[in-house]
């Protein structure tokens, strides 16, 4: 997927005019925050748990080398292999190499944002290997050739009839007159089509919500159970994860899991939380023969050293999207790449380069809601300001554009007579506009005279 983050303004304009998208956004930006409030209302310790989560992440960032080395050791002891990759292209090549070694024709995938980040599907497809997304929403957008518009609900921008049309188009082998008017029917069809893939895939490729140093485990949460089929059925399982996902212990993972689903979907916990540790053991009749972990940096070590370290604490719950007034207005596609909403405004310039996403940190009202609800207390507005400052220093971005206006104002302000004349002319002009028709006519009309003129008059009365 070619990023269009540099065209946020155009993307946003299109999104605002899209009636169906607006209806979908209104639905879910009210649903998710309410569900979140309900579940945290039943967990009085929620804020204390957030503090603990932040403390764990701070500890991990300070000891990242230790925990990654320990994780690798444990994976090896269990018969698995860790592959270190500096960037997206190394990760793509590594995964392709593993798939080729497994003689893979079909790879089943469970949702992975890192997979989106490195565009692994396109890479495998180009090499003649079928990569099938198995999360229902992710599958729908994959066969439509789109990118996810929300980190948790990738197809939130589509209606049931949209999806039914897509299925009729893409599942051409099925009877054309079948009834897909009910969501249940769409689900049954997806289940049947994907079941065939689950059972025949040669490689399963999953992401990981966490990696556990103590046990060499990959933790994956889903509600559908698709990741478990991806991790259990094929002969080879590849975990794709970035380095900041490592956690010290199972106990630490439990703490983070208490925050994740509550913040994300407003569930106490997802239906499935899986701790996968290595290949099949002695005597086991299922599970993979080969277990690989592709450990990706792709900009994370840079973030560890710069102003954006806190962003490495992100657990990808998506709460900042669900609560963001800008996201609620433009949806996920306007952000032009994998990560949308407030997290995307910080991550996208970091991972793609600031010049490719200059508008994103500026597309904020700075209402602060994202920081308020972030389970990891990431200061998202502050980091957007960092980006704005950098742009300003480089003479770019909206703040820098404002500079010429300020210069003009300063020049005028030093010339009082000219300033008075221009101000009263502007007030008069605005007054005329107020008498106009349509949208312009609804503008509030200036109170007739300028502030300076009124001040002179009042000052005269006082004397």
């Amino acid at each position, binding site marked *: 997927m070619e990023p269009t983050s540099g065209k946020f303004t155009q993307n946003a304009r299109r999104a605002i005019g899209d009636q169906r998208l607006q209806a979908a956004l209104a*639905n879910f930006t009210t649903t998710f925050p309410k569900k979140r409030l309900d579940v945290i209302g039943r967990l009085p310790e929620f804020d204390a748990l957030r503090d603990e989560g932040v403390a764990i992440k701070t500890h991990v960032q300070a000891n990242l080398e230790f925990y990654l080395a320990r994780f690798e050791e444990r994976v090896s002891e269990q018969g698995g292999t860790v592959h270190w990759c500096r960037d997206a292209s190394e990760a793509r090549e590594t995964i392709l190499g593993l798939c080729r070694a497994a003689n893979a024709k079909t790879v089943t995938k469970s949702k992975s944002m890192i997979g989106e980040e490195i565009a692994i599907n396109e890479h495998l497809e180009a090499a003649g290997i079928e990569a099938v997304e198995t999360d*229902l929403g992710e599958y729908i957008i994959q066969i439509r050739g789109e990118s996810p518009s929300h980190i948790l609900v*990738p197809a939130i921008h589509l209606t*049931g009839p949209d999806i039914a049309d897509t299925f009729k188009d893409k599942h051409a082998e099925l009877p054309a007159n079948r009834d897909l008017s009910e969501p249940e029917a769409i689900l049954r069809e997806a289940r049947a089509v*994907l079941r065939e893939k689950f*059972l025949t895939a040669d490689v399963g490729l999953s992401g990981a919500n966490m990696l556990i140093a103590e046990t060499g*485990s990959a933790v994956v949460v889903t509600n559908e159970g698709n990741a*478990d089929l991806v991790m259990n059925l094929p002969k080879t399982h590849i975990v794709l994860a970035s380095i900041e996902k490592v956690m010290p212990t199972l106990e630490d993972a439990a703490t983070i899991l208490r925050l994740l689903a509550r913040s994300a979907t407003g569930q*106490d916990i997802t239906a499935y939380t899986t701790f996968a540790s290595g290949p099949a053991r002695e005597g086991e009749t299922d599970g993979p023969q080969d277990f690989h972990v592709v450990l990706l940096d792709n900009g994370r070590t840079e973030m560890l*050293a710069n102003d954006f370290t806190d962003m490495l604490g992100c657990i990808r719950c998506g709460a900042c999207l669900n609560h963001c007034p800008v996201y609620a207005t433009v949806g996920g596609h306007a952000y032009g790449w994998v990560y949308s909403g407030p997290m995307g405004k910080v991550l996208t310039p970091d991972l793609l380069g600031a010049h490719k996403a200059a508008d994103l940190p500026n597309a904020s009202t700075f209402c602060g809601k994202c920081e308020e609800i972030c389970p990891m207390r990431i200061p998202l507005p502050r980091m957007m300001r960092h980006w704005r400052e950098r742009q300003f220093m480089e003479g770019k971005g909206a703040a820098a554009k404002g500079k010429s206006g300020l210069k003009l104002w300063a020049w005028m302000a030093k010339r009082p007579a000219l300033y008075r004349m221009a101000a009263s002319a502007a007030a008069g002009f605005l007054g005329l506009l107020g008498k106009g028709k349509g949208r312009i006519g609804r503008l509030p009309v200036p109170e007739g005279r300028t502030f300076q003129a009124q001040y002179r008059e009042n000052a005269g009365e006082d004397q």
Partner: protein
Amino acid sequence: MNGAREDILSAIRRAAVAPDGDPAARMADPRPNLVPARGQGTPDELLARFLSEADAAGGTFTQLASRDEIPAAAEGYLAANNQPLEIKAAPGLKNITWTQQSLLTVDFGRAEGADHVGITEAFAGIAETGTLMVLSGAENPASLNFLPDTHLVVLDTSRIVGAYEDGWALLRGENGKTGFMPRMVNWITGPSRSADIELILLLGVHGPRRLHILLIDG
């Protein structure tokens, strides 16, 4: 890619993040962080919470006096839900006298695509969210939890604990402090679900549509 490993680790060192805690000590003695009140209580309170949370997550349950009652309860549940009376069971459940229910067909082994009903045994039940903790192994194939349309799970009441951390402690206690992790630990809370189509909640997306717990007393 050995160069990549060294490059990444040296970039981490160069970042020189301020020190925090002692990672080796944390590994050597894993301790619980804050355990919420809902993960604590007397055995009776935990049983009641486990059942109400499991129910809220869309699971169902039957309480049985002993393991001998499992075949009849399984048959009753499947008949009531119009499901085929054919079970693929975990080999660990071979010691149950399945033949007492003549209508029930029971096979043992991992799940295949055609299996409609799977039955496994849970290692523990976690009260705080009504979660089943199921371990993989030769005796308890993990695919049985996910591939069939209906999942039956045997759980001893005595294995109900308060919090996730209690589940880990139980696992460490029984399997030793190192190498205690099976290939898979599955936390299962209710049946498979998705809200990917217009946020409408649908059950049985890829995993089971039905999750039924057979809870053994005593």
